């Protein structure tokens, strides 16, 4: 039981966590890689993405409603997950600076709660980032939520399910799911920007290459470290958060996880 906590204090692990956390939290990326700023998108596109986003959100809310009706305490757990994601994203921000890239945390969320719930939760995290940190915006919430709260988690969840079915290697599945959620999010963001601002010559494709190319520099290492971080957190959860995980009906008590160092 104590083994894993000790592990957290070993210098090597600390170094690793520190490194990945600094990378994920601290690395400033252009154009708020994850979040498009208030007023950045032309009004047509802002409305378009809101329209696309809304049904996804409504579906997610409905499924959450059902879940929490059966089990009201789940609300606390959901709020906890959301708040933790937010705090991680706020951590390294010195006082008022309104942005920088950060782990999306949506990969883990999608695995734990499913993509439907995550579409709501991720959106709420975005709302708080906009309201408390002025990071992202309200009019661009639709676009940002599509990439971070809907499409990213959906891919993460799909990846996790697929890998679990075919390989049964849980840690690998979690790593890939989290890393992929992060990557997909940035790909979608680039696409949204490219659609809104096609290049004069070469149009959307060239524009997409430009945005994606710039983001790739920071985002690929970021995605990898988010993968690692998520595996660590998962290990930790499976030791200390057993009751909560069981509450989520995710791990049956007999499944052996995370006990090995």
């Amino acid at each position, binding site marked *: 039981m104590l083994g894993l906590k000790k592990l*957290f204090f070993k210098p090597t692990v*600390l*170094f690793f*966590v*520190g*490194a990945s*956390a*600094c990378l994920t*939290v601290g690395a*400033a990326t*252009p*154009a*708020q890689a994850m979040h498009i*700023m*208030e*007023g*950045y998108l032309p*009004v047509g596109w802002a409305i378009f993405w809101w329209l696309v986003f809304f049904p996804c959100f409504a579906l997610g*809310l409905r499924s*959450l*409603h059902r879940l*929490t009706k059966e089990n*009201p*305490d789940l*609300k*606390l757990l959901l*709020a*906890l997950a*959301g*708040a*933790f994601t*937010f*705090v*991680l994203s706020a*951590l*390294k921000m010195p*006082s*008022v*600076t*309104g*942005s920088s890239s950060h782990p999306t945390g949506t990969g883990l969320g999608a695995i734990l709660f499913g993509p439907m719930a995550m579409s709501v939760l991720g959106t*709420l995290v975005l*709302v*708080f980032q906009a*309201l*408390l*940190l*002025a990071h992202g*915006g309200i009019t661009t919430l639709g676009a940002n939520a599509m990439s971070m709260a809907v499409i990213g988690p959906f891919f993460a969840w799909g990846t996790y399910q697929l890998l679990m079915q075919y390989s049964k290697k849980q840690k690998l599945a979690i790593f890939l799911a989290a890393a992929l959620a992060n990557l997909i999010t940035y790909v979608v963001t680039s696409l949204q920007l490219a659609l809104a*601002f096609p*290049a*004069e*010559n*070469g149009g959307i494709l*060239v524009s997409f290459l*430009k945005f994606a190319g*710039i983001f790739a520099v920071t985002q690929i290492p970021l995605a990898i470290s988010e993968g690692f971080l998520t595996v660590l*957190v998962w290990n*930790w959860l499976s030791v200390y*958060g057993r009751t909560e995980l069981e509450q989520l009906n995710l791990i049956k008590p007999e499944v052996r996880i995370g006990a090995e160092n």
Partner: protein
Amino acid sequence: MHIYIDTLAYTNRLRDLHPIQKLALAIAVLFIAFLSHPPTHIAILFWMAIWNVAYARIPAEIYLKMIVVTGVFLLISLPALVVNFTSAAVYPLQADSLAGVALGSWYFYISRTGISTALEITLRSLSAVSCLFFALFTVPFSEILQLLRKIGCPVLLTELLLLMYRFIFVFLQTATQLWIASESRNGNRFWKVAWSSLGMLVPQLFFNTFKRYRQLSLTFASRGFTGEFRVWHSRRYQFSLRYALEAFLGCFALLGLEFLIF
């Protein structure tokens, strides 16, 4: 780590002004910002600065810092809009090119339309952000929540928002406290060598967060959590004629400016 927006929202000078009045102004001007052109954007920037700094008494340095930070991020994003590339074979045909270099079979150039788009986006974004700031700085989160409840937002959503809000500050406090506690015992010396204190903070924060969550769930149970988070509040707000007048006249002036020029 201090969330200025939240604190200022509770302590600014327009605290007693009705949130609807403040939000209506922010939304109206945001709307104008979206539909207008650069000169109007500049006017909006100035006018909103007056509301924020002079009326709401947001410390000028904080306001400026936030605007500047936003501006810096906008600047970083501009190269992707301004620089364009195309195959070297067609580059002489580029009327759009202001200046450029050929690299191998590619031609990279600074695009004229790119520059004008970039300029437009920068100003639009900044003026939109200044409206957003006005709303954020003067309307506390709990009031936004009450408004959401009033306009029939699903209960589940407002509950989750409220719980998250409380958790966020509990965790931020946990993080700050951890940081201060280790600082007071001179803990950040070695951590600095081993990649800053964040390395220790993150796992500890995670751990403490979880502990707090467990305690809070007991608290919720003991205080009779019914599965729905409801609270009552006493705030009484005033509408201000003077501010309403200025808001109206200002918006008309902005629209007038827009129509005069374009």
